[in-house]
């Protein structure tokens, strides 16, 4: 396997007043270039923490995150994040939000006209060019998330990290955005890592699904290959044998073997 992103024996714990809370224990994962990997698990299992570790927003307690064989321990635009609640800056227009990223990342490499074209190209990619002068408060939740994706893509990241990107959206909007992400993945061939708690979403989008056990000290329980050819269409897949099998495997993992027990301690 060609290691593009490698998570090498990662532990993560938080120390608070002498108490140690183990969150992640011995996480090993190798992700290839161009792969779409979903990380699924019950809430509180530390999957968002894992994404923060990859993004560099939180330090690992032990082990290392390696991107192209180089250790990463601080955030950077080559690991762009699409945040769960879009995190657009409300005082900037849609265009300015994307432009902030573009001018920071390509301030030297591109001239002004090229930067403008690049901002517009990315807004076009998520079909938001028409709203470029609107403020985030003037557009819908789905549109905000599209702009968040455009902002992340505009950084030309080596890896796109998606932190439950569609969690706050209604089902119809979510389906639209999933299709948009699939299309972008097909067109650009980015490496993407997505956190989700939606089984259908994970199976539909991913090449592989990483299933996490429950915390504390969560581990990778199982990694499932999704052997479904792309392009995928949600309607055709609804009765596809491979799709149903994958879906069942994930459901079994989540609800039989690692049932979420509230207040486990």
């Amino acid at each position, binding site marked *: 396997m060609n290691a593009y992103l490698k998570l090498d024996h990662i532990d993560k714990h938080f120390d608070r007043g002498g108490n140690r809370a183990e969150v992640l224990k011995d996480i090993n994962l190798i992700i290839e270039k161009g792969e779409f990997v979903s990380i699924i698990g019950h809430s509180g299992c530390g999957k968002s923490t894992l994404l923060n570790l990859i993004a560099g*927003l939180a330090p690992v307690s032990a082990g290392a995150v390696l991107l192209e064989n180089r250790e990463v321990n601080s955030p950077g635009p080559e690991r762009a994040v699409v*945040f769960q609640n879009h995190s657009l800056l409300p*005082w900037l227009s849609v265009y300015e939000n994307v432009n902030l990223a573009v001018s920071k990342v390509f301030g030297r490499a591109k001239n002004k006209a090229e930067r403008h074209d690049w901002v517009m190209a990315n807004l076009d990619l998520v079909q938001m060019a028409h709203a470029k002068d609107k403020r985030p408060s003037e557009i819908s939740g789905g549109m905000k998330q599209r702009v968040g994706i455009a902002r992340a893509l505009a950084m030309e990241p080596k890896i796109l990290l998606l932190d439950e990107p569609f969690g706050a959206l209604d089902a119809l909007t979510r389906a639209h955005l999933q299709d948009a992400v699939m299309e972008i993945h097909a067109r650009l061939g980015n490496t993407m890592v997505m956190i989700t708690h939606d089984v259908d979403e994970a199976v539909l989008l991913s090449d592989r699904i990483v299933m996490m056990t429950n915390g504390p000290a969560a581990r990778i329980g199982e990694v499932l290959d999704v052997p479904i050819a792309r392009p995928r269409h949600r309607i055709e897949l609804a009765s596809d044998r491979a799709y149903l099998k994958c879906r069942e495997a994930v459901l079994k993992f989540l609800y039989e073997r690692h049932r979420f027990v509230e207040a486990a301690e």
Partner: protein
Amino acid sequence: MSALAKQDNIPANAAAKPAANVVPFSRRPTSRIDLKHIGSIVLRNVVPPMVVLGLILMVWQVLCSSPDASLPSPLVVWQQSYDLIAYPFFNNGSQDIGLGWRVLVSLQRVAYGFGLAAVAGVVVGAIIGQSVWAMRGLDPIFQVLRTVPPLAWLPLSLAAFQNASPSAIFVIFITSIWPVIINTAVGVRNIPQDYRNVAKVLRLNQFEFFFKIMLPSAAPYIFTGLRIGIGLSWLAIVAAEMLTGGVGIGFFIWDAWNSSRLPDIIVALAYIGIVGFALDKLVSALGSIITRGASAN
């Protein structure tokens, strides 16, 4: 006001729709001045205070119209201080100038002192808001210092600067800086973690973070601090000028008291009140223009 504008716009738009085949989204229905709209604003916002003011003046006139009243009645004020009321900008030599000029001199001092306080307050507040240790060290000290009345600083300030004008400016500065610092620090501490994460992923440096994330995000808090600050500095300037002399509005009141010109004092009070009100509205208007959209999410 904005709610009212919206209410008026909706029927105008609706009326325009059936007239044309293409729905004129871009046409602005408020191209002509809406007399009814303005009339209702005047009715709601100007008439009630005018009525109350009239009542107060009447009661005041009745209370102070007896010959042995200790304070002048409104009519007496009008007669004896007519030149001050009607001509704010006359200039008959060094101490015989209109109240408009005096207010301007005072405003200039406030501009220096408050301007310095605003800049220094935002910077210090940003540092305190960013750093837990700076907050732990400085916040208690600031909480004590901010309760010191403005005039208590004046003797020290005179001793340090040896000159009346910079002393007055320093008093303004030291009076108005605390709310700016404290509010900025709160605003900076309340910057959502999401925005900080965005800044981290983009690798914004301290400078970029300050201007692109911190200032706009904390702007509503900062302007609340500035608004309190400008009110305090206007309070302080009058008191400071009474003691330092010069040509400001504060000294005018002291001077009028020493020469028993009570009507002049009353006119000066009205000037101070109106200017203070205007300053407050100015900062608040500035704030609402600049922070437009910053709080909406």
